[in-house]
């Protein structure tokens, strides 16, 4: 009985080993898949993290295209805030370009350590030759 029992136990062990094999492979596949997903997620997160060093120009967009002075000043202040922050965050930067953009018109600005200078008139982005 004991021998038989041992044999039975041995058979059970073999069965368990046979069962454990595929489960390991499955686990490995799951782990690999999770690892790949995690890596992709990390890559995406890294792509989303932008350093101040990278910024060449910032754009403030406003769809209304209003020429009302208050709206224009509001949009400019928004842009100047971005440009000032970029200069503030990166102490060795000398200047930064900025654009305001509407449905048709665009202005260009250069912000450096002494202040801001920009285009007197807006540029029609749709007009060839502008």
């Amino acid at each position, binding site marked *: 009985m004991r021998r038989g029992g041992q044999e039975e136990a041995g058979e059970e062990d073999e069965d368990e080993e046979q069962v454990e094999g595929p489960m390991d492979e499955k686990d490995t596949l799951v782990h690999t898949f999770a690892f790949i997903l995690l890596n992709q997620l990390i890559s995406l997160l890294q792509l989303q993290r*932008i350093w101040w060093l990278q910024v060449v120009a910032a*754009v403030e*967009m406003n*769809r209304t295209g209003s*020429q009302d002075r208050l709206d224009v000043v509001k949009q400019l*202040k928004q842009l*100047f*805030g971005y440009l000032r922050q970029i200069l503030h965050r990166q102490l060795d930067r000398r200047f930064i370009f900025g654009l305001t953009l509407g449905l048709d018109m665009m202005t260009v600005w250069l912000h450096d350590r002494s202040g801001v200078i920009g285009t007197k008139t807006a540029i029609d982005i749709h007009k060839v030759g502008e």
Partner: protein
Amino acid sequence: MNGPMEGDLDSVEQDSTLHYRVTETKQFLDRLLPADIRIVTAILQFMKDENLYDSQTQRWSGFPVPTHQENGFEKMKSNDSSLYGPFCAIAEAIRGFAETRARLSISEMGTTKWIKYHSKSPRSTNSQLRPGALFTLQAIAEHMGLNVSQVRKWF
């Protein structure tokens, strides 16, 4: 918050009043952002060939057309996000052509990229700025492990 930090508001106010100058548009562009007319012409032709610029309507393709309300400058809740996609698509096409075929703007600053950035903020400790779009150096944007010293500064 979709603008400067509280502490910078006074400085921004000063920028827009005391430290603010305008100059002739042509002079400004010619001096600070000079471009060879042949390259500009080539870019425009490429845009037309790729149907990114519509010669019939004389407008950039995909760019929103002003509505009556917007033309009349009436106050309305605008959807600025409709500008981000078309602008970045067109700007990226121009950049791609300029960097790969014109080969003039790539030498100094490396590859660049226009990205929509209205829903994110550049990495910082406490700032939450969200400009509509940013023109950035692609090298670092796509390879964050790159040593900063490997990137040539141009500014």
